[in-house]
């Protein structure tokens, strides 16, 4: 009967290792993604400022009520398109992330 020794067995891995380039490129790809996300956030912030200006316009009656209604409808459509299970899972994931990183 073949004996097993946990200490010895955990020094080796049965999985096929990723290619060397995976680790060589990971940090630069990641930093590029973070920088890209930063730019996206800045763009989003600018868009939010622009949206706020439009919203002011809407309040002042400069823009049409229809376009405001259209935006609300798209969000409604998206939320309605989700099943109860998907919606609950989306909410649960957001709550899990918030709770974990708040208490980190």
């Amino acid at each position, binding site marked *: 009967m073949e004996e097993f020794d946990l200490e010895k067995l955990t020094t080796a891995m049965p999985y096929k290792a990723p290619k060397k380039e995976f680790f060589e490129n990971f940090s630069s790809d*990641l930093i590029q993604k973070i920088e890209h996300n930063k730019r996206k956030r800045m763009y989003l912030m600018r868009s939010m400022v622009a949206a706020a200006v439009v919203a002011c316009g809407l309040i002042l009656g400069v823009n049409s009520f229809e376009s405001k209604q259209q935006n609300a409808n798209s969000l409604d459509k998206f939320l309605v398109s989700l099943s109860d299970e998907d919606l609950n899972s989306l909410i*649960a994931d957001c709550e899990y992330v918030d709770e974990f990183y708040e208490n980190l």
Partner: protein
Amino acid sequence: MREDKDNDILELIAKSSTRMQGFEALVIRYQEPIYWHIRRLVVSHEDAQDVMQECFINIHKYIDKFKHDSSLKTWVYKIATNEAIRHFNKNKLDLNSYDNKTKLIEVFEAEEEIDFSSMEAKLQKALLSLPEKQRVTFNLRHYEQMNYEQIAEVTSTSVATLKTNYHYAITKIKDYMLKQL
């Protein structure tokens, strides 16, 4: 891993002029051990890659919350473990259910270039049949060479509970392995 190297990294991150340089050093230092830690939990390379990316993005986002009351290593492992568990939650994989543990074993069996007759492969299957907390505890203790105090920091669990988890894990692994021999 040397802690003074971690301190050098944290010093670089603390200064805004060298923040990205420090973060890159952190990624290079931890990417390989973190990849394997995640891979052992989620099994497939593709999932490990996604979870690892999410893990380092969150490390970058929350690094200012690191309070020095734990080591950088256990803090990084804490985020990695959490992201792996979040991956299971998002994919509705409750690893305490028998069916879902079987699913992970199926993913493992679909992996290429594994000698399934090897003892290492049999051990992996035994580990994949464990509940989530027992598996995490075993992996951190054996593959990452962490002591109970460090595992407690990673998993936010008491040392007493960890010892119980570890004891159950070892008993189940031995039973499983003996059946395979």
